[in-house]
């Protein structure tokens, strides 16, 4: 039995699962960059992201969404990869602001990465430096759309192309003192 919505055909079980995933996004509390300053306003009373079922999760095990809130220092990148790999499928990454797209204002810094999607797969990019709460919510709405249509499968891509990602990651993280993969 399938169900069709917005021209996308899905088996009903998957449809329901996606519907639940879409409306319940646990966001990992990890402020990786400047953009973290707009997370509290998004989560609190004025913008109230909980309306969309978005709430904070304290540990990567419980989280669905990893927010990369801006630039990533190479030292942070290592932790982010670790955190990302600890998260359980299905998991999503939302990248905030210019820095994650093409380096932003730190494009010439020796300590920040430029393009996030070389190191971990990204589902949604939000424009801004930094994105306002409205933009953040738009990002979540876009993510929800992707989840509902069953297209948010970037985490699978990561597993499939792990070698490529690893190569990129190891180019920057010179001393790889991590378990090689920790699903």
């Amino acid at each position, binding site marked *: 039995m399938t169900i069709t919505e917005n021209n996308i055909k899905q088996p009903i079980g998957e449809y329901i699962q996606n519907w639940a995933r879409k409306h319940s996004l646990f966001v990992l509390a990890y402020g990786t960059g400047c953009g973290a300053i707009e997370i509290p306003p998004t989560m609190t*009373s*004025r*913008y*109230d992201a909980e*309306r969309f079922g978005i709430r904070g999760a304290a540990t990567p095990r419980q989280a669905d969404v990893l927010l990369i809130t801006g630039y990533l220092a190479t030292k942070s990148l290592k932790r982010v990869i670790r955190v990302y790999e600890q998260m359980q499928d299905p998991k999503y990454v939302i*990248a905030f602001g*210019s820095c*994650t*797209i*093409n*380096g*932003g*204002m730190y*494009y*010439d810094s020796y300590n920040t990465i430029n*393009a*996030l*999607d070389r190191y971990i797969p*990204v*589902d*949604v*990019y*939000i*424009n*801004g*430096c930094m*994105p*306002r*709460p*409205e*933009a953040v*919510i*738009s*990002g979540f*709405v*876009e993510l929800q759309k*992707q989840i509902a249509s069953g297209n948010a499968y970037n985490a699978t891509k990561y597993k499939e192309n792990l070698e490529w990602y690893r190569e990129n990651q190891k180019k920057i993280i010179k001393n790889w003192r991590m378990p090689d993969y920790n699903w």
Partner: protein
Amino acid sequence: MNFFDLKGLLQPLGAVKQLGKKPHTINYPYETKRTADRYRGLHYNDLEVCIGCGNCSTICQNAAIDMINIDGITAKNGDSGLRPRVDNGRCCWCALCVEVCPTGSLSLTKDYIYVTPDANAFLWTPGVSNPDAKNNISFTSDTNLSLSMYQRVPMRELDGMERVKSFAEVVLGYSEEEARAEAQRCISCGLCSNVCPDHMHIPEYINAIAQGNDNDALKIIYDNNPFPEMCGKVCTRRCEDVCAIQVRGEAVAIRWLKRYATETAPTAQKIKDIVNPIIAEPNGKTVGIIGAGPAGLTAAYYLALRGFDVTIYEAQSYAGGMTMFGIPKYRFPLDSVKKQVEYMESIGVKIKYNTKVGRDISFEEMHTAYDAIFVGIGFQKAWTLGIENEDIPGCIAAVDYLNIINRGDSFDVGKKVAVIGGGNVAIDGARVSARYGAEVTILYRRRISEMPADWEEIEGAEHEGVHIAIQTIPTRIIKGENGKVSGIEYLKAEMIADENGGRPRPVAIEGSETILECDTVIGAIGQEADYSWLPESFKAKIEIKRGMMIVTNEFNQTGDPKVFAGGDAVNKTADAISAIADGYMAVKGISKFLLGN
């Protein structure tokens, strides 16, 4: 621990009353909060206003702005044809690009939401990506707030009534401080260089001045212009017409800055010391040049630098051509050209004075003697007015008049002078006459806005008390009792729109004859070249059309590959900088022709 502090334990429960309050949550995305009137969101660029100066791209500390070609926008004078594209993967919404935009075309809008899963989709061409955003502009720059400096550092000048008392230079030049301040205004876009006939390296030398390296500035200037002092004083400066700052303010005073740079080298020796030109080893090729005007001298200078053996043939007893005696002293002192020629001679340019080609030496002779010939004869003969009594005493062509005055000979202009024409030469004639205490009237066929002379000149003339009678067509000169001029009769004209869409023509009004009393009539309606030196046998190859020599390529080569030409006789614009440019291009052509590089 105080367990009995019931107030402290229970009072916070008062917060429960907030349950009844309406939440202040913004129900985005179902409702949207108003964005501030000066919010800095995505870029918008008014493509029509933008001139592609690229200042936004330069100020961007994130290297976020690229200048790219856009369909439908082509380069033209004062527009590079490029438009900014913002990489939103770099932009930090600081809006410095808006603050420095000289035209004010770039602004930020209230839109800020752009969400996509595609990381490569963040290249944003303002104005193309969001053509409708014009009504949504928020953060803009106006001339008061912009970081572009729209106010020119004022040039110190003699007062109008003070000027007419002598032939002292009107413009006093920038002091060092003023020059640095003025040079700082330049945004180094290079739109000016593009329209300069000679393509001088304007951004570079202005920057050198701004940084306090006047010597480097002079060196850069001498790279392709050996007459900077003249250009610094009397250039027609098309560069300033396209200056990016000029769109909303006063153009950078490029001419005055060049003048400032040249003032640091008052003698030929000083010039040589500063410019320190590298003279190539003689390459054994000889070049003959006809006419020691700007074009000829330029060609000679750069050819000499490249190791050619250069000889100039000049009919007059002095070098410099029209620039020597054709410009009044209050604009351009006489010793300037002398200094320049002295400098050129010091690096090996040979000039044969009083040697008129066609009289003292034949063109055929030259043609065989030299490996290449450059013709820079200029316009020598003034056009006649073509009206009655033109040849009587008291009626004189402006070029002749200026020549006489500048040589120091005397000419009695009388009490009242009429000048016919609207070009710079006419104004020069008028202002010189004003310095002799005459009451001067300029008769011009069209309106003031259509006068080809520089507005500064026109203004200067007006300040000095020159009256401009517009829309007047002289019909005859009135011969007085002593056989001299006593007045001029002219018709009033009205401007009739041209059916073909051209500019309006002045048409005389019947019966509107007016007589203007005057003692001297100065005709300044143009000059032409004299081609009597050119043998008929060459005229087949070297084409002359409407008094102009025709060149076949950008190197100013004529139909005869050995003969190059430049200056007024070739160039319609007929100004010194074009002549210099012609000379410079011919040097390139001759090098290519003779040396193959």
